[in-house]
């Protein structure tokens, strides 16, 4: 039994220590966000945040995660709210909203990783340039070729976050990483 903290909940899992986290999340806990793509840390399909840092769950054994805070797509709104000092947890994050508004998707399977990575990026850099977006997202593949629209959506989400920051006043946003 290993104890993990996933989306703020401490949970005992059955899987052995060598098990990559992805299989615990998708099989044992049946979460639908992190999902298998390559099992080789090459595509970003299984991405999660570990203490706020985008990490490939398919190659990360649970033994290495015992004292870490794991955030999956299911918990991304709560994570975003905590990081930005929002009073309540929104249904969806600005990244998710912008992706839908821009209709920036085809099959949508890559979305788990895209949302996790874009959220990490915008929490670190609320106003990334085109080159910074491409560089941050470069380890995430999309076979459908939605990259141009994902880039526009991230820019749109970045504007939303900046506007929210302005209207909330800078003081309440000091907690932003």
């Amino acid at each position, binding site marked *: 039994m290993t104890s993990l903290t996933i989306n703020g909940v401490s949970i005992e899992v059955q899987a052995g220590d060598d098990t990559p986290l992805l299989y615990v999340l998708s099989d044992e806990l049946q979460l639908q966000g992190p*999902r298998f793509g390559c099992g080789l840390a090459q595509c970003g399909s299984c991405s999660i945040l570990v203490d706020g840092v985008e990490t490939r769950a398919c190659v990360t054994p649970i033994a290495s995660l015992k004292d870490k805070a794991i955030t999956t797509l299911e918990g991304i709104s709560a994570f975003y709210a905590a990081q930005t000092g929002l009073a309540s947890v929104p249904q969806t994050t600005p990244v998710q909203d912008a992706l839908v508004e821009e209709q920036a998707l085809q099959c949508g399977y890559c979305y788990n990783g895209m949302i996790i990575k874009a959220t990490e990026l915008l929490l670190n850099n609320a106003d990334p340039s085109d080159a910074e977006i491409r560089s941050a997202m470069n380890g995430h593949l999309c076979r459908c070729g939605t990259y141009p629209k994902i880039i526009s959506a991230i820019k749109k989400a970045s504007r939303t976050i900046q506007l929210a920051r302005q209207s909330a006043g800078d003081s309440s946003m000091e907690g932003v990483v």
Partner: protein
Amino acid sequence: MKKILTSVPLKRRSLLKAGGALIINFNFQKASFGQNQSLLAGPPDPEQIDSWIAIHQDNSATVFIGFAELGQGCSTALLQVAAEELDLSMTQVSTIGLDTHITPNQGGTYSSSAMRVGGPQIQRAAAEARQALLQMAATQLQVEADSLQVENGIISSTRNNALSTSYGELIGNRQFNLAFTGNAPVKSPDDYKLVGTPYPRNDFPLKAKGIYRYIQHVRLPNMLHGRIVRPRGQGAYKDGVQVTGINEDSIVSIPGARVLRQNNFVGVVAQTEWDAVKAAQQLEVSWEQPGSLPGNESLFERMEKGMTNERVAVEEGDVSAFNTAFARSEFKAHGPYQAHVPFAPNCAVADVSQNSALVMCSSQDIYNTRTSIANLLGMDTEQVRVQFHDGAGTFGHSCWDDVAQAAALMSSMAGQPVRVQFMRWDEHGWDTYGPAHIGKTRISADSNGKLVSYEYEGWQHHWSLIETSEQTAKGTPAAEWPPFPAQQINPRTLGGMYDIPNRYLLNHHVPGLDYLKGAWLRSPVDLSFSFVSEQAIDDLAFQLGMDPWQFRQQNISEYHWLGVLNAAAEAANWQSRPAAENLSNASIVRGRGIGVGTHLASYGGAVAEIEVNKRSGEVKVLHLYGAIDAGLVVNTSNVENQIIGQLVQTASRMLLEEVTFNKTNVTSLDWASYPILRFEQCPEITPIIVQRLNEAPSGAGEEVMAAAAAAIANAFFDATGKRMTMYPFTPERVRETLAG
């Protein structure tokens, strides 16, 4: 499995999901309607209105659609068509998943068929249902049917508002019991409210929240996890897989893991997915690998020199006019094997018992898959039920049938439900690839720049008929599809857009059993066709000192072709000049190119702007402009996405993608050895739709790729004055071409 599920209390699991609820894509009322319809094996009778549309008491409608949602958005666009004809709002229409017990057989979802074939079928069925409902209302209200109007399913008299009824009142949850004649009049395009608009896709919000259920998320009670065990990377199709030994003791350390073997089919199952993954990797199996492939180095030599079957695809006029023509171009070039490699490897869940089989998978053609599963299991087709669940975008015949067969075989051997997901190397290594191609062309023009003659010879093999799971389990010999033309050289992309008095197209069918497995990959072989053909056309313009856009314009009279050609050139602000006019000694040079092409229908035109680093050999595609004329575009946002996807994929296929193999097996087994385009390499994209409200939809899923491939190739010539004769444009290949 049970033990593990209960180890996480339900409450905790729901906490983890942060309030996310179990998602069912249709409400229970509609689900129970589907259940009624599902008592008998399908397909439901397409001659009955009830097979297409069900009206519920709340005025909503369920539309039974026989096409698969592959990420192209057809599940939204076909509902737009139905809602338009029924005068319902988009929130009143829904569909349910493809199921051989429920949804009609509209044929497979390929060749951009969903809107081309499905659009008119759904439109006519909806129009006929509306007509029947208006007749019922006329009887009930005792007025003439043509004095009635409908809004959101409420029917009222145009003369007296007090006279009204509704769809739900008239027929809610009861059947029409009416023959579908196809004779009801459909709306005039002038009256369209929903068709032709960018209505947002209904699956996006769920997908963005991560609560959309893909096939990879489907679980059944008492289910085992399975993996196939094969050599890493396929050999020659005819050789299949030959097991010479298995050491079952090699997985005893994994509790509950066991080997399932039928002849040369080998799989493993375990209680948990990770145990199945470990068991497949750990199992010691020895194989006989005959090494009968040509390897990349000898591929084209073997294809061209071996025995082939010839078919004349087009013969018009006399191409010997080439010999005396003013300007002549002869060009030969090659296209590689390329892979589908969906972002998620294919997955299927099967529950096979003595007398029945349920198979859930991502087949693009569930009725065909049902037949193949029935053959495999020795059952009648009526005993097999196949349900479609979306996977990742697949772009043709990837491993979805192979994995469905593997799951069915393993469930039948295990005696309980089995979920099989391919590993990345299974998907990359055992794909049915888009076949390699050799093209040779001779084209000529007169001194006024009018095309005189066009000859093309093309070599490629056909598609593979027998899946590897069946081949290994049953010993069924490898076989190719019968020689129908869609697998062969494409007269539309090969000069079909130009006015040419003399034309001769010859197909060399290379018998495919000595090669890799093949199948249709988005815009099948068209990228290779246009890579050869449109470079030769460009070369004629160059020889004549003409601008390549103008040269094409003066040889095209068909208005759709001219429309896409001009739309792409105008979007790119194309300035008239001959190609390769601005060659320089700089190490980094830029060029622009233009091309036209398509697949079996519709029309594509494209312009590319690229940058070539002559020193390193690196090519960057800076901007792609792509125009599609697909007749009536029902959902403009979907088609815009389709064009973007096609252009990005074309850049990927032209710059990076090539299946590599030696004499023994395929060696491109993951995203490192088979790279695809990434964010940093992605060009700017300008999608252009040529909308034709008064024409039938003709398909928009693959029709601009050939044009874009040609535009990239021609841009390379414009930048460097050299022509590439093989893609992808890898740095090594580019340096070689520039040195030559």
